[in-house]
């Protein structure tokens, strides 16, 4: 199944990925080859087979609804990892122009 340039651009937008024009073309070819391989799944009769998102059989694993505070060292490391901040606040670019 061949993907069009327009489809690739749409997926790249959904994935929030900047791709160069050259890469878009390469990506279209590579994804098409992989999708052709994956298409063998359509041969399998799965009528009556449930689809679950895990194989463990765990059901409703819940945690106590409690706030757990981290220690000061951890807090400082989290702050230090921010690429752009003002004091203890994370700074982001404006969403509306």
């Amino acid at each position, binding site marked *: 199944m061949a*993907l069009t340039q327009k*489809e*690739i651009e749409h*997926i*790249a937008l*959904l*994935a*929030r*990925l*900047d*791709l160069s024009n050259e*890469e878009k073309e390469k*990506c279209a070819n*590579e*994804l098409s*080859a*992989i*999708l052709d*391989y*994956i*298409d*063998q*799944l*359509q041969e*399998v009769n*799965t009528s009556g*087979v*449930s*689809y*679950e*998102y*895990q*194989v*463990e059989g*765990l059901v409703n*694993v819940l*945690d106590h609804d409690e706030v757990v505070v*981290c220690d000061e*060292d*951890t807090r400082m*490391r*989290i702050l*230090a*990892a*921010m*690429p*752009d901040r003002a004091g203890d606040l*994370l700074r*982001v*670019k*404006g*969403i509306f*122009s």
Partner: protein
Amino acid sequence: MPFHQLTIREVHEGLVQKKFSATDVVQSCLEHIEKNDGHIHAFLDVHGASALEHARVVDEKIAKGAEIGVLEGVPIAVKDNMLLAGTRTTAGSKILESYIASYDATVIAKLKKEGAIVIGKTNMDEFAMGSSTENSAFGPTKNPWDTDRVPGGSSGGSAAAVCADECIAALGSDTGGSIRQPASLCGVVGLKPTYGAVSRYGLIAMASSLDQIGPFAKTVEDAAILFDAIKGADAHDSSSATASLQPTLPSLKESVAGMKIGVPKEYFIEGMDEDVSRTVRDALEVLKKEGAELIDIELPHTSYALSVYYVIMPAEVSANLARLDGIRYGRQASDAKDLAETYRRSRGEGFGPETRRRIMLGTYALAAGYYDAYYKKAQSVRQLVRRDFDNAFRSVDCIVTPTSPTPAFLLGEKTSDPLAMYLADIFTVSANIAGVPGLVVPCGFVSRGESRLPVGLQFLGRHFDEETVLRAGHAYESATEWHTQKSPLS
């Protein structure tokens, strides 16, 4: 024998008998890394100073006559996708090139509690995506048996570090074969535990329903020691097993006499390397001689497992890696004009080609209009792959297969063809799809030109029955001497 070549068991006994100190062992590993790692690039960061400091504390404890645990003072290498608070953790990616982990992964906390010494962080394919470690943003790792060849991947750094005796043992992670395939290609022991047996808290997520942390070791016993230390339920990982798991070590030395071992015909396929096939068949004879009963079985959906994997894995990758947006941590693109451009450019510039490819594939598979045809279909076939195993385990105790269709391939051999690279995982992905444990044990060598290249035997078991695969692997290992062979860089 130089200290860096020792096993966990040997280090422990030596420390207890005061034949040498923990500092001697750490020093020996550090010197060997210094001398050797330029040839193979197994490590991204070596934590020399903290390892020596830790060793000094252990030595003081021993000098005072205190008892020590089996992992106490043992230098362990850790794949660079597990967080170690206050140190760099890159996941092999440029986007996390200078990221300092803010907390300890549960496995790290457990290793610390046992007194093990983290000697450094090992190289890996970016975000664990690859089968050769060539997708690392920091350059490939090379196979200690032949440095023109790959060590396998994605935990290639950990496998090569253990193989070349740059550490005593290591941790890796396995999403589609990333512990077992490099263990096979480097000739070391590797265990992918049952999904849920080991907490994934603090493991940088690739595909959450498939990822599992496990040990690399020089012997099956060492793998069992390390597995027993890191396993168990964890409140921070809701998918970790709720049942308490018994230690695997005590029953390790029982024989395989009377054990029913399944041999699935779907794993002995055309196109597989003939030398590898012969080596694995010879290994089956050894198990038979040890008293195991070999039974032909069928796992009919095996040929679909890789397709299932290449839908579910990229879908989960695209969701998990959405958090890497250049805002809260990691590399942020400079001079973007708005938030949307910050996201697009931080990700476009920060991720390597394979990561971008899998994010695109996963985003496509989850997009409206394709979800039913790909993702839902793959989840249904996944249940069929799992049922194959459930059926097989009604008549056998474990299953034995080859690990990789070929020995270590040449650097660059498969980098231009993603699909060819994906096929390297054809014998390992089923275990992740079904969630069952898999152990790889060295089972011989094949010749390629001047080089001898290792081959690994894979044991698959029932959910949470690591004990049986470790016991079978241990029996095989005890009957052979492949695991004692040292690479030229050991």
